[in-house]
């Protein structure tokens, strides 16, 4: 049923309907509303027999989730920014151990300088952590992706991060159809772990692996991610059949077919990009949009197919790799090495990405007037003063 509801609340209610057995919580903006809402649902008994663990750090949160998942429980937590980095060591551990933990990342910048607002620096910094990364465009998709995330995670024995833009999505109130319990139950079977700590069948999990087998272990981890490229779209298709709406999958082309210019982006900024592109198209500009829902594993083939006809590609990035440039660009380049690609760094630390700015930017892009690495709305006077 559709209701006017905050994004965080919708995610919390959706996660609740996925029947998690252990939820760990540690506060950090802009994620906190999600675990607050879950704590209320657990306390009310509605989620029984779910255990809600208030931990002492994000490192503790991911570690509790690791223990819970290894003992066969469906485990969930949420974090953002500094919190995600604080659990970095445990993130690699969770994926290495093949534990299907699901986590919401309410995307936020990383300090210094400390900044609580939205960009993708946090999840991008963990792109190689072995987690599947899905990016929500809207709050409806954020809710839906969580249901799919548990399915994907448990089918592959891999952890999944659902990334949703902090504040822009987490704190936005809008009409959302929160998946019903019946629908979720029909779509998501109970968790049947592939390996579990059980006194009746003792097993050593987390042994030390040396040079003789480590390469093979990593190879197999990669193979699992490649398999995810098949699982993710299938789960999205099945979701559409059960829920009668389309969410998730690998990529979302929007007017790409026959477009000279294609803008690649992820997350909530896609809404503004599409609006701007609609206007430009109405004015006769040949331009389309490619939304990346799945960033890890990187859907090279799907991106290549969507960009096949494009003459130029603009990658709009919400994070910056200092000393290198665009993080997503590097991967898009891997899909279409022969096409001219421009990187646009936009919306860092919560700076709004407005239609006005985008319009100017894309007008320059189609006229080949953009620098290969462009910072949207950069205050040139400020940086030039500092650099002089």
């Amino acid at each position, binding site marked *: 049923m559709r209701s006017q509801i905050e994004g965080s609340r919708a995610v919390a209610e959706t996660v609740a309907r996925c029947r998690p057995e252990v939820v760990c919580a540690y506060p950090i903006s802009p994620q906190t509303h999600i675990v607050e809402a879950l704590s209320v649902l657990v306390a009310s008994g509605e989620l029984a027999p779910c255990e809600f663990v208030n931990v002492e750090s994000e*490192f503790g949160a991911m*570690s509790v989730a690791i223990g819970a998942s*290894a*003992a066969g429980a469906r485990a969930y937590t949420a974090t953002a920014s500094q919190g995600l980095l604080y659990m970095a*060591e445990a993130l690699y551990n969770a994926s290495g151990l093949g534990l299907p933990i699901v986590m919401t990342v309410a995307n936020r910048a990383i300090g210094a300088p400390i900044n609580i607002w939205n960009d993708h620096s946090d999840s991008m910094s963990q792109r190689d952590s072995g987690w599947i990364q899905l990016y929500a465009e809207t709050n409806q998709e954020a809710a839906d992706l969580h249901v799919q995330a548990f399915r994907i995670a448990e089918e592959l024995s891999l952890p999944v991060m659902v990334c949703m833009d902090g504040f822009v999505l987490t704190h936005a109130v809008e009409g959302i159809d929160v998946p019903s319990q019946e629908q979720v139950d029909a779509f998501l079977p109970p968790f049947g772990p592939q390996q579990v700590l059980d*006194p009746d069948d*003792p*097993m050593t999990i987390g042994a030390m692996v040396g040079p003789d*087998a480590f390469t093979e272990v990593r190879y197999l981890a990669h193979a699992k991610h490649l398999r995810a490229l098949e699982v993710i779209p299938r789960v999205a298709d099945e979701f559409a059949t059960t829920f009668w709406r389309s969410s998730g999958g690998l990529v979302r082309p929007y007017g790409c077919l026959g477009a000279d210019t294609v803008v690649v982006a992820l997350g909530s900024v896609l809404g503004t990009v599409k609006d701007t592109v609609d206007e430009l198209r109405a004015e006769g500009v040949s331009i389309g949009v490619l939304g990346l829902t799945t960033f890890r594993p990187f859907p090279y083939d799907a991106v290549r197919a969507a960009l096949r006809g494009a003459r130029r590609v603009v990658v709009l990035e919400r994070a910056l790799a200092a000393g290198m440039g665009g993080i997503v660009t590097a991967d898009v380049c891997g899909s279409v090495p022969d096409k001219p690609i421009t990187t646009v760094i936009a919306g860092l630390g919560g700076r709004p990405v407005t239609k006005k700015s985008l319009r100017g930017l894309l007008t320059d892009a189609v006229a080949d007037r953009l620098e290969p690495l462009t910072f949207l709305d950069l205050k040139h006077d400020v940086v030039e003063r500092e650099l002089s």
Partner: protein
Amino acid sequence: MPVQRIKFYQTGSFAVGNRLLDPDQRSVQADTERTNSLTMGHRACQGCGEALGARYVLDAVMRATGNHAVTVNATGCLEVFSTPFPESSWRVPWLHSLFGNAPAVATGVAAALKAKGRTDVRVVGQGGDGGTVDIGLGCLSGMFERNDDVLYVCYDNGGYMNTGVQRSGATPHGAVTTTTPAGNSFRQGKSLPLIAMAHRIPYVATATVADLRDLEYKATRAMEFHGARYLHVLVPCPLGWRTASSETIQIARLATETGSFPVFEAVDGEVTDVTRIRRLRPVEDYLRPQGRFAHLFGDTPRGDVISSIQAEADRNIRTFGLVETTEVS
């Protein structure tokens, strides 16, 4: 013919040979049906106190729980020497995640078991002193404060041994490590048993591998409680302490007989039992056989350091009442 009755003069002490005791008084290790939680084939050094301690603790836990326990291990010697893939010396369900998170992982396992209604299965977390008193302290304190149903065992060998004998927060005053070449200049380090007691958790105990019956007893007793429990076991490390492999038990005993390592139990944050020192010795007797303290007895003897170590032992003796005093009026 009259039946010859053998006088079990040692009955009542822990020293009596197992075979002479009634079956119910025998140690867990004397039981041929014991779990052998940490079984043969592991790569620990000869005389490793940690390997010995872990086997005694876990076998006692397994017996106490009717073989219904799960173990979570921090990174460190115990983890490395027991699980060189594709081999494992563990005969208990065993999970290793990271160096600093074993208490939190154990909490997660306990939470999962609770959610699944498997309250018959108990959880043990374990790690070295570095994993416990230093890098894992945040997670451990959280586990204590929430009073999660976990027994956490620290095997204290006074240093980061797995990485080659570096100083930890539990390295004793004066000890040479590879990062304190002139001897550890800090004093008592941190007493994790006291920190644990400050959390007022149901059960805290210390033990050594010199008194293995006491170690078994404490691991067993710990399982009678629910909530967070902490067991701190002194486990000499021949490599790091520069002692002979054959001296492990002897050195551990000297640690207690000199007052350097107080052995006690505490319930709800209050000391309830103390193992008294039968024959008090000066700390020198404990320090002298260990290569890590050799510099104290070298060409320029460090009487100042020895007397400050003695003062710390005296303080232990006073604080815990380690020596029976007869008041003379």
